[in-house]
């Protein structure tokens, strides 16, 4: 106990995020201007939220992963732009509809994985294709979006950047769940499902709920995406799918389940966003971006598995 007092642990993703942020501000000082924050946050929001949406399924263990996150967010975007807006559903009711669709798709994923025992990769890969196809069907061409409530989310809502509000949504839901017994059950099931089962935890329900949560968060991500691009875009489906998973991995959440969390995924997504920023600030060709993502991911996963509990930093004893 005593030996821990003078130390604190900094996860790899946090250390990397801080380093990247400093580097970016040095290269491109305008990045730090408060006036640019709302814009920057609205670009970060879809990344960050979709990485967070990928997290509960990974935490639930049993090879859990949700590849539908990318195309589902696109479907949400297309439904909103191509169906709801033309029908005059542009207020609070559209939010409810979109969240319900997201949760329903997540629920189906959960049933496939936990009840019908599909391999999560296979089940959600099927969902990936179905949803990507649906998005193309709903809005084959980009449709313009008239002024609507999401427009504000791309900028400021009162004094607060809209991107920040949307990123906060999943975190608040997660925090509220942390006040119940659910999160502990989720970590237990992900950590060792046999132990959890023998202790009387309903492993199936916990996993179904994890995928459902993922679907719900994805719907929030879809709204953030809509706010950012202000059009329908079926083409972004596959683009976000793998970046979201990369964010989870870089954040240090274990794909074996039971270790990690939403905040880590947020950090992971932030790192990916910062790498993107940094490369464009340094005038590196966009074609190299994906190469760099991959390389950083390899190094990042290696480092976070070698130091699963982060770096120990000595502080001055007070």
């Amino acid at each position: 106990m005593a030996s821990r007092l003078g130390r604190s642990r900094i996860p790899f993703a946090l250390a990397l995020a801080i380093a990247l942020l400093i580097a970016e501000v040095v290269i491109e000082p305008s990045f730090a201007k408060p006036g640019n924050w709302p814009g920057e946050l609205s670009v970060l929001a879809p990344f960050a939220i979709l990485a967070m949406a990928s997290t509960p399924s990974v935490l639930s263990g049993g090879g859990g992963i949700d590849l539908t996150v990318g195309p589902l967010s696109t479907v949400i975007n297309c439904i909103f732009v191509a169906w709801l807006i033309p029908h005059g559903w542009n207020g609070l009711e559209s939010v409810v509809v979109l969240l319900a669709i997201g949760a329903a798709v997540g629920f189906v994923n959960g049933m496939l994985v936990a009840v019908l025992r599909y391999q999560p990769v296979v089940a959600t890969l099927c969902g990936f294709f179905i949803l990507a196809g649906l998005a193309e069907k709903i809005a084959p061409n980009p449709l313009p979006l008239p002024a609507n409530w999401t427009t504000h989310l791309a900028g400021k809502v009162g004094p607060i950047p809209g991107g920040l509000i949307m990123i906060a949504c999943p975190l608040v839901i997660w925090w509220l769940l942390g006040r119940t017994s659910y999160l502990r059950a989720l970590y237990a099931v992900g950590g060792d499902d046999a132990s959890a089962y023998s202790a009387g935890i309903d492993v199936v329900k916990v996993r179904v709920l994890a995928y459902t949560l993922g679907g719900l968060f994805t719907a929030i991500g879809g709204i953030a995406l809509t706010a950012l691009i202000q059009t329908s875009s079926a083409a972004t489906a596959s683009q976000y799918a793998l970046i979201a998973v990369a964010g989870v991995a870089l954040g240090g959440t274990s794909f074996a389940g039971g270790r990690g969390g939403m905040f880590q995924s947020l950090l992971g997504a932030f790192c990916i966003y910062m790498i993107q920023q940094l490369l464009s600030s340094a005038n590196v060709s966009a074609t190299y971006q994906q190469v760099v993502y991959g390389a950083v991911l390899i190094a990042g996963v290696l480092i976070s598995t070698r130091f699963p509990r982060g770096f120990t930093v000595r502080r001055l004893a007070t």
Partner: protein
Amino acid sequence: MGVTDTPETASPSPHPGSAEPSALAVAGVSKNFGATTALVECSFELRRGEVHAIVGENGSGKSTLVKILSGVHRPDSGTLHIGSEPVTGLASPAVAHRHGIATVFQEVLAIAARSVLENVWLGMEGLVRTPSGLAERRARVNAVLAELLAVPPNLDAPAEELSLSQRQACCIARALVRHPKILILDESTSALDADTCERVFRAVRSRAAAGMSAIFISHRMDEVTEVGDRVTVMRSGRTVAAGLSREQATSGELLRLMTGADHLADGKTRLSIAERPAGAPVLRTPGLRLREQTAPIDFELRAGELVGLAGLDGHGQDAFLWALAAGPVTVVDGGQERVVTSPWAAARRGVYFVPRERRADALFSGMNVGENFSLMTIDRDARLGLIRRASSSQRLGRFRERLGILFSSPTQPIDTLSGGNQQKIILARVLAAQPRVLLLNDPTRGIDIGAKRDLYGALGELVREGVAVVMLSTEVDEHIELMDRVLVFREHQVFCEMTRAQVTRDRLIASFFGQRVDSHG
């Protein structure tokens, strides 16, 4: 003490019709897993406030009974009463908990990444519900842990930082913190150190005095006679003695009851492998240790010898057999000694290993019979790198006759063969490589008696030809009837070694449980 062939019928309760209420009653419960029968008409009664021990050797059905009582398995037939309430079967561990039954299993079911507090409190709340106050939770967990451990761990430390004994103590605390009406300890004390074990017994006794009932399963006779108020003995899925009192349950009597008397026997095979002169040494393990702290094993295997490895599951016999296959082990070949450190190096010197899990480790289920057979000898069929299938089919034909393997053609999928014939194909694969030493891990597990006898016959032929065989077996009768000598493993050491003349059923089973029986007959 002689062995009776007729199993003892359940003795009547010493207090027939007494007012002592029963906490749990099982009557006529049967359970099959596919073709395997685990429980036959099993009966068992647990009184309120007693510690009831269940004993039996491997595969006697006690673990299946426990799993039925803790909601892991559903019985095929039979009745279950908890208190006076009839229960049709417990659908899940959560349902068992609601009936007041908490079970601690042999496997240490702690979640490595989660804290001690969470591990102990695991499953106490519903799925999405505001939990009870943190302070209360901590206090209750602390109280139980302080009872079980001399130095309780920090509640916030992750379980992976704890010792095995501490982790198992957390699992026992998880059961106790629920205030169960019935506590089941299924060999869960084997992971505990001596002090914690003693504390657990004390905790169980004090709760039993307050009305809790406990079912206690252990492979240690001293624990059983120390802790159990009454003892039930199981054998081959049946209750052979129910509720023996402490006076009746001497360890000698318990051993006699656990010892079955069904004969595997095939007289001819026994005769054919009776006393033969031992050949030259072929394999040595100078000072092999299975664990850092355990006594070294100096084993020497001679040509034409048939050696059995015995013991309760998980006492080191598997590790020993694997050590013979994978090294480091000294292979003696025509006066030349060579230390071998990998399975492939061993195979080059004629040492071949057949793993226990047929489907997982030995068969290639996507391949056909011929391909499965020729895996180790395929290079002999190649001319200029091209494989001539006829050559391997010819070889397979020879073994088909010798081992009596039933299949229609070499292109038949391996999955369509019975377990016995699959095992024969695996044996044929190894025999075709002309081994000098054959290492077999429980080769007759789950195959019918006819196929077993064919395999015994083949082993008899092999040893007469001078092949040395080391065979791990979980069937006591195989040790009695086949082996030239038997090594009994206990706690990752060789507990004792018996020659063919010394092996008796009583002695062998007694030695599994760490007891030495001096005389027999």
